[in-house]
């Protein structure tokens, strides 16, 4: 009896969930105007980082402009491993999505499914992070190495090209942030011989951890003059650490990415500059590129650098 009840309840749950899921496409069908309608699946690394939400906003804005595109945002809830993301790509193939926009967590692990999608005739647009295959239609990303070099030049300028600096990175082993660390290092070592990088710590993008690591660096090196942070969480943590230590004047922070928190700290002077990517452009141009491809056209340039903007106190108002 109990078992029956449980199964019944489960059945009701499944039906109601399925009902919810069904609702969306029906609405879309009735709203669709003339011409063909396309469903495009956007798969990012997770669905909570502001960065990905901006990609999504850009994609949705482009879809709204074009009018005949529906964007399905299908990202893992939290940071996961690449196999979960590969399953999402497979789902999109099975659901006969008209195009797939993918920010790959792992360039090797996602290669087979990207190729599978292409075999199934589905255009693949890569955004933010690539896959090690030539079999894609367009790749929109920040040239992270170039951005990191720009960050190095900015920090070097701020500290008068001499002194001790520390690095707070996000995830050890993640392609994007490791590029930001390594390109920064190479630039400092080759161009600014009087700057010494005393060490690197990995905050996992956790603001508390970044704050703690930065505080420990300031304790360990009282003569520290600069800190470079490689993503939003690290930048906010480091900015707060410097602000709380009252060292905004003596320690220059150059970070990466943008958010309300980063903005506040730049206003306060605790962060001197932040390399702001253009995730909105990635999503926006990504959908535009996908639209070109699905309607039989070709993208003129396959690999597109969406660039960075250096956010400082002076241009804060212009950054979105």
């Amino acid at each position, binding site marked *: 009896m109990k078992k029956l009840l449980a199964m019944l309840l489960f059945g009701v749950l499944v039906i109601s969930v399925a009902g919810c899921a069904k609702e969306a496409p029906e609405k879309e069908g009735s709203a669709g105007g003339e011409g063909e309608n396309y469903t495009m699946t956007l798969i990012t690394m997770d*669905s*909570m*980082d*502001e960065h*990905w*939400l901006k990609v999504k906003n850009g994609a949705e804005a482009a879809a709204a402009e074009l009018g005949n595109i529906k964007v399905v945002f299908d990202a893992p*809830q*939290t940071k996961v491993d690449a196999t979960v993301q590969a399953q999402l790509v497979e789902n999109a193939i099975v659901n006969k999505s008209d195009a797939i926009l993918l920010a790959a967590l792992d360039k090797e692990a996602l290669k087979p499914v990207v190729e599978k999608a292409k075999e199934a005739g589905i255009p693949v647009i890569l955004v933010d992070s690539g896959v090690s295959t030539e079999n894609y239609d367009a790749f929109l990303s920040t040239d992270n190495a170039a951005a990191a070099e720009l960050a190095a030049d900015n920090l070097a300028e701020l500290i008068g090209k001499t002194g001790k600096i520390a690095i707070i990175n996000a995830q*050890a082993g993640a392609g994007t942030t490791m590029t930001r660390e390594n390109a920064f290092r190479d630039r400092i070592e080759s161009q600014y011989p009087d700057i010494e990088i*005393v*060490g*690197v*710590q*990995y905050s996992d*993008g*956790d*603001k*508390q951890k970044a*704050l*703690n*690591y930065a*505080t*420990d*660096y300031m*304790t*360990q090196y*009282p003569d520290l003059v600069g800190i470079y942070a490689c993503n939003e*969480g690290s930048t*906010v*943590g480091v900015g*707060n650490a410097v602000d*709380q230590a009252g060292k905004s004047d003596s320690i220059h922070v150059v970070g990466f990415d943008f*958010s*309300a*928190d980063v903005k*506040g700290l730049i206003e306060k002077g605790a962060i001197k500059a932040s390399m702001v990517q253009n995730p909105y452009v990635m999503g926006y141009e990504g959908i535009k590129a996908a639209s070109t491809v699905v309607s039989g056209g070709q993208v003129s340039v396959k690999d597109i650098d969406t660039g960075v903007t250096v956010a400082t106190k002076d241009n804060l108002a212009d950054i979105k």
Partner: protein
Amino acid sequence: MSELVGKIQSKSLFDSKTKQFFSTISGLFILIIIFSLNNENFLTTANLLNVAVQTTPILLIAMGQTYVLITGGIDLSIGSNIALAGVTAAIFMKAGIPIPIAMLLGLGVTAGVGVLNGVMIAYGKLPPFIVTLGTMTTVRGITLTMTQGIPISGLPEAFNNIGIAKTLGIPNPIFIMVIFAVIFGFILSKTRTGRYTYALGSNFEAARLSGVNAHMTLIKVYMFSGILAGVAGLVMAARIISAPPTAGMGYELDAVASSVIGGASTMGGEGAIFGTVVGAFIIGVLRNGLNLMGVSPFIQQIVIGVVIIAAVFFDKLRHSK
């Protein structure tokens, strides 16, 4: 005869507790000595206060986890509760609710999650691991939904003061940590709720049959863990004047580590707030000291992992003797 056995047992129990007390605290002192010999900046007032501030969230959540571990359970929802408390309080603050009330509302919500955990475990007879695994994911999802994935920033200056301002030269989080450690240490060692907590972990059926209100005690214990996670979440949000929905990920494991280093048993029946305080500080000192020594962050993870296993291993050795 049986009285004599009882006496011997209680005496040896006392001895093992004393030994444990000395072994954990001496572990902490050995670490402190090693680090002060290695780095001149370690044993400075500024750095020690800094270590205490860095350890505050870990200790708060570890005390809740200790209660739960003593009953033979586990609370995996702690990390998510950290984010929930911060985000809830932040939303109310942004809506113009006075800061203390907004903070209490944040704590109320995480206490509610704790009660829910307790009810499902006590009345639903579901395994704590599964129940709190479920609430861990659910609460994280709710927090992300509440914020649309974006941190809530621009919180009032006065809230920030709770996290960074100093009273009599000591940062406020340290006072919060001490007050809660005293309260929860007292409840566990001196009150009926505390004794019931141990009784449940030693032998649940026996405790229930001998009149312990098992259900109510379990609910209270999980509620304590929810509240303490909430306090940690508020302190963390106050330190960075921002409430990210992603705060506290994986922190529940730091809580388990501090508790077991401090002598709590994952099998239930054992643990004490004092031990947990030492356990949390061992982790805090270890992280800070290794940072100051410039030890690679990769090696640090190895060291901390080894310390956790070694602490439990020595504890086990002592028990088998």
